[in-house]
């Protein structure tokens, strides 16, 4: 399965220029893609388009699977992508397990199966000791690993990460990246980052230049 953006154009309301002017990129399941570029270049906008949270003015985003080009029906970018943001998007008063279980419950519709999967994913990000701790009591790096575990538990084939280490120190960033690129699941990962070390950890690196995607 691959997530493909083709010739995407986006202009925000009241903006004078298009932020994306024919941007194209793709990521395969099991592959990691880093998108770099200066602030305001449209990195996060492209990520939003890939995840189906921003509708492009032109161009398209497709999920391509095996022999068929494009999958119709319920399979939309929104339904195959999970998010990891720079800011800590968690239910702060709820435990790590609760946070991860919500995603797993959407996936399985069964609390037992969801709990089992949530515990597996928390173990994968080395948080099995903290499953019942409210996330507000965890460190920034731990919270980001909870978010990665939640993305894994969603079972979605692509993880979109917007500056996932932007608020973390170097050592913690390394650890979070270790977890993110070694989930053990065959997921495709798209990471928007300013950090060259983070980009270096990815299989493919591209840059946004003048609203278009160019290889590094």
């Amino acid at each position, binding site marked *: 399965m691959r997530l493909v953006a083709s010739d995407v154009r986006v202009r925000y309301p009241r903006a004078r220029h298009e932020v994306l002017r024919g941007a194209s990129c793709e990521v395969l399941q099991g592959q990691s893609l880093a998108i770099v570029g200066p602030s305001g270049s449209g990195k996060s906008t492209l990520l939003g388009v890939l995840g189906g949270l921003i509708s492009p003015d032109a161009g398209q985003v497709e999920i391509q699977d095996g022999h068929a080009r494009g999958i119709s029906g319920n399979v939309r970018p929104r339904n195959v992508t999970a998010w990891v943001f720079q800011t800590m*998007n968690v239910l702060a008063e709820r435990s790590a397990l609760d946070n991860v279980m919500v995603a797993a419950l959407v996936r399985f519709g069964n609390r037992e199966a969801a709990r089992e999967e949530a515990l597996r994913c928390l173990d994968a990000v080395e948080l099995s000791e903290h499953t019942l701790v409210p996330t507000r009591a965890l460190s920034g790096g731990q919270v980001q690993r909870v978010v990665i575990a939640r993305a894994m538990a969603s079972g*979605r084939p692509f993880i979109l990460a917007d500056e996932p280490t932007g608020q973390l120190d170097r050592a913690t960033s390394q650890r979070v990246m270790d977890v993110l690129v070694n989930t053990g699941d065959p997921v495709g990962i798209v990471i928007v980052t300013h950090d060259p070390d983070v980009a270096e950890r990815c299989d493919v690196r591209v840059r946004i230049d003048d609203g278009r995607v160019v290889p590094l």
Partner: protein
Amino acid sequence: MRHTHGTERWRARDSINEALVNVYRGGAIMVAVIAIIVGVTAAAVAGDLTAGNRIVASEATYIAAGGDLIIARPGNDGSLDASACARVSTVNGVIRSFSLDVEVGAAAIAGRPEVQQTVVTATLPVVDLLHISNMTATDVVASRILADRWSWQVGSIVGLEPSDIERPVVPTGLRTVVAVRDLELLSEGASTGLLTIRPAVGPTQSCFVQVQRAYRDDIIAALPALLAERADQPVQVAPRLPEGRFAQNSAHDFDSRPTRFVGLGAGVVAGFLWTVVMWMRRGRAALYASLGVPWSGGVLIRWGEGVVVTVSGLAWGAILGAVLAKMHGLEGWDVTSIVAGHVFVAVAVDVIVVVVAALWKPAILFALKDR
């Protein structure tokens, strides 16, 4: 790894469970919201109950002064029939009716021959109006002025003699003071009198009718026909208290009191407070949506959280308001229906506001990056 693309596995009970756990684990924000709603509702309910209590107390004063009494008198020098007056008590809306005659200076008091004593004779229902029990034909009720003047009290023996031997219009003999009352309630002339009981037969100077407020005008209109012995006999009917002085309609005052809408106000406050909280927590709504919780599931989560928090705040606030009003002198009138009415209106308005606000659809990306 098994990939799931849809959101159809999320069920309504999952949303309800999330809402309840979010409230339970909500901590300071939930406590603060509930506390504000409790405070606002308690103040509103206590304010309305206090306002209602003032009206009830005012009505009690009004009735104690004779505000619900109507007096019928013959329109000429004739008299009314005491038995006809007694029959008026069977009319719908009439609480009681009794004949009353004031004989100024009709008796002398034994041992004080210089005193020309006013005697009031009335039929038996007057004792209920005066809140007297077990009064017999040999008892008298002393007016407060008279009791103070002669140091009479309950149990004192009073000897009555006719002041005019040729006009023995009042009962005489030894009488026991069974009660001391402010007889000005009945008439100005009775304020210094001694009241005795007479049978409900024969002519009478006046017929007193105590009425329920809602029937007052109808009864005033009907009394002449009920009391006239002949079709052409004039009967004058007038309220005991002059109109405009104490005239009041407590039921109308109560129904139109400005604080009657406090339930509506509390519901609006609670609903909009929760709407503000929902806006502050919009990132959570976006988070659930980004995880694949369908819009309807998100609405149910937001609705469940809002209803649990605001309705509990409204209910506890109403109870606290009633308790506070009680502690500050609320008298014994039934406030349950008033409080229940406020709670019903407040909850209905609050739920409507919360439900409408919960329908809001978050802009996921911006809400999540905005935190």
